[in-house]
């Protein structure tokens, strides 16, 4: 695949215009590409033990040995014939942007399936080296692979790797650099005589202007029914395409194969043979504790119960430990703030107080509540629980018109809604993606968890926290049901790989938690501090009163809340954590119960839980589903929040 677009035959310059070689990781979903990438580049790409963790590509410069390389981590793809958005990203990248070489990552524990992609790569003229990853999983299955034989049969270097431990990662980069500087053509798969003849005939039909090495690739793609390549060939020469399609039809009819299955089944047969030739079972597979764990975790009755118990336990833990820690952290800052405000009267004091409140508020949120939640999410992702949750929940999700695979992004939404919305790209159909993006903002993300734990948890106890989460799930489900009845179509059937459990090395979980904590520290904390200072200034200038009285018909008359909360709700649109901090600031105390009645606190939290998603979420939604649907989503959130909060407020009147 030379990167010339065959439609326009434009010459593209080198991808980066510099001398730094560019390598890209390509492989099937969940084969460890991102883990390999991170092993070389530091924690930059998100990882997880489920298919579709990477839906976008990540780029990084790295120094390997003593050479600088530019690395690209591409979304996983089962084949070069894409079937979802994320796979299409990889295919487009390969078509358009020339890497000097590809590092093809294969999962050694499911070798024959992985080899099918290697055979497809061998059809292209892109130089590549193979990272034979997950050698530890293969060993656990009792499989031993003859790496040298595999390399000889494919005609490309093969390096065994264990990405989680960093084994072999440097060697595979050197191999890729070697094939980049002296490209070798991989050994192309040999099909049946009839198939090979069909390829030759189509090659001869292809329009001029293609390099000899790419003619064969295009011929194979046309015979496989690749819509992209067909369109490009068709735009150059209609008759040639018609003739090629005739050949494809004849080939299929003669052999009684489905038209798009000829190559898939041939490649499968070749891959199975090759895999059998290079690997042997040296001992019985270890029937591990991990398999037995599944008989509980995926049990129709115990599975959901166990998941619920684990989550309740987690909230109990962050409630007791986090609550205590939060108090310890917040108190000194509060004293300091008051002391400073007393020392410097006027505007300087107000700024100081805002600054200290923001600093302390950030710490009081991060340490006790955010860290444990991020840790739990990282663990869930890396261990491989999420696809199992999708399996368990598929039946229920179908009843509200959703797809089981949505469970994966939706659960990630408990950490933050933004990755949930982006993660929806792993779903195959547009309808399922749209629904997942629309429901994501209803999931109580970590910022809202902070509000729930700090207000509901502190003043009503753990039982109510759990009740809040159940309410949240019910509302999300109800909204899902409602939206899906307006979006025609039925969800696709579930079809997804359930990977084996993997015990992530502590280092990688810690790296992931740090990566996300840092992003909180760098983006949210400054926002908290700035907003806090702004709030102090507004108070000082008396503008907060104007905002509050403007919102009074809504906050006081409709929802029965104190007028002072008006300005906090405005800030909450930027970051949900702000509502909490601003509430403390607006009321002038962290003991909210001394100023607000229990019903008022409940009303406030219900409203904050559901009203307009934060700015980052809205921006992401616009990018994924456009203005119209984002508008609908925001309106929907606001109305649900208003109606529910109003209903709660009735209890106090």
């Amino acid at each position, binding site marked *: 695949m030379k990167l010339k677009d065959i439609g326009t035959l434009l010459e593209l310059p080198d991808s980066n215009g510099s001398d730094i070689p560019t390598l890209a990781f390509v492989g099937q979903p969940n084969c460890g590409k991102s883990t390999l990438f991170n092993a070389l580049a530091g924690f930059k790409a998100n990882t997880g033990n489920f298919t579709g963790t990477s839906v976008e590509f990540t780029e990084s410069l790295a120094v390997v040995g003593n050479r600088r390389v530019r690395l690209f981590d591409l979304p996983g793809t089962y084949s070069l014939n894409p079937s979802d958005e994320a796979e299409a990203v990889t295919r487009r990248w390969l078509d358009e942007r020339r890497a000097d070489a590809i590092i093809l990552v294969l999962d050694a524990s*499911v070798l024959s*399936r992985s080899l099918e992609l290697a055979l497809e790569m061998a059809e292209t003229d892109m130089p590549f080296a193979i990272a034979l990853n997950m050698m530890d999983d293969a060993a656990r299955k009792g499989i031993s692979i003859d790496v040298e034989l595999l390399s000889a049969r494919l005609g490309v270097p093969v390096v065994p790797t264990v990405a989680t431990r960093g084994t072999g990662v440097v060697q595979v980069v050197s191999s890729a650099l070697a094939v980049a500087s002296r490209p070798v053509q991989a050994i192309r798969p040999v099909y049946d005589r009839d198939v090979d003849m069909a390829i030759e005939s189509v090659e001869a039909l292809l329009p001029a202007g293609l390099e000899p090495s790419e003619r064969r690739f295009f011929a194979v793609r046309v015979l496989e029914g690749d819509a992209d390549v067909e369109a490009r060939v068709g735009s150059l020469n209609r008759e040639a395409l018609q003739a090629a399609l005739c050949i494809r039809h004849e080939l299929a009819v003669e052999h009684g194969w489905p038209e798009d299955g000829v190559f898939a*089944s041939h490649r499968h047969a070749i891959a*199975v043979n090759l895999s059998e030739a290079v690997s042997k079972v040296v001992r019985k597979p270890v029937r591990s504790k991990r398999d037995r764990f599944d008989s509980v975790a995926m049990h129709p009755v115990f599975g959901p119960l166990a998941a619920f118990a684990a989550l309740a336990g987690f909230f109990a833990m962050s409630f007791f430990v986090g609550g205590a820690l939060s108090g310890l952290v917040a108190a000194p800052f509060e004293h300091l703030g008051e002391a400073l405000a007393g020392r410097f009267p006027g505007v300087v004091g107000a700024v100081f107080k805002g600054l200290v409140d923001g600093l302390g508020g950030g710490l009081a949120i991060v340490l006790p509540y955010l860290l444990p939640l991020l840790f739990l999410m990282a663990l869930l992702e890396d261990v491989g629980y999420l696809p199992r949750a999708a399996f368990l*929940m598929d039946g229920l999700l179908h*009843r509200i018109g959703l797809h089981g695979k949505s469970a994966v992004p939706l659960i990630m939404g408990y950490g933050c809604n933004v990755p949930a919305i982006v993660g929806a790209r792993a779903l195959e159909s547009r309808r399922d993606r749209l629904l997942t993006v629309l429901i994501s903002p209803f999931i109580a993300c970590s910022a809202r968890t902070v509000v729930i734990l700090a207000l509901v948890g502190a003043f009503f106890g753990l039982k109510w926290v759990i009740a809040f989460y159940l309410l949240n799930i019910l509302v999300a489900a109800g909204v899902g049901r409602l939206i899906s009845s307006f979006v025609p179509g039925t969800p696709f059937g579930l*079809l997804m*790989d359930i*990977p084996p459990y993997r015990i992530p090395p502590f280092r990688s979980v810690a790296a992931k938690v740090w990566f996300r904590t840092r992003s909180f520290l760098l983006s949210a904390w400054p926002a908290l501090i700035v907003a806090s200072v702004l709030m102090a200034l507004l108070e000082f200038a008396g503008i907060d009163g104007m905002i509050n009285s403007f919102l009074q018909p809504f906050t006081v008359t409709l929802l029965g809340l104190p007028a002072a909360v008006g300005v906090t709700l405005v800030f909450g649109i930027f970051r949900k954590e702000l509502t909490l901090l601003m509430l403390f600031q607006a009321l002038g105390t962290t003991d909210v119960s001394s100023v607000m009645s229990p019903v008022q606190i409940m009303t406030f939290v219900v409203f904050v839980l559901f009203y307009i998603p934060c700015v980052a979420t809205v921006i992401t939604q616009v990018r994924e589903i456009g203005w119209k649907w984002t508008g609908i989503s925001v309106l929907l959130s606001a109305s649900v929040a208003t109606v529910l909060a109003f209903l709660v407020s009735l209890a106090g009147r």
Partner: protein
Amino acid sequence: MTLLDVSESLPVKVVCVGCGLGMSRNLASLGIHAGDIVSVVRRAPFSGPILVRVESTGANIAVGREMAGRITVETERHRDAS
């Protein structure tokens, strides 16, 4: 007989994935092809998907009920008799 009729952990051979063009390709990319030996590991609640193990690789694939109903299979014994 389809995958839906198979009792748990009984190995069966996939005869045909005859459920439209796109689907056989998707199943193939996950490693389920005609001729493969597979078994049903477990079923999800609420008429959810079934978990299929591909015996040759040990890969576990969740397959929605509708799709599973369109994958015809035969038992090893049945094949010997015919």
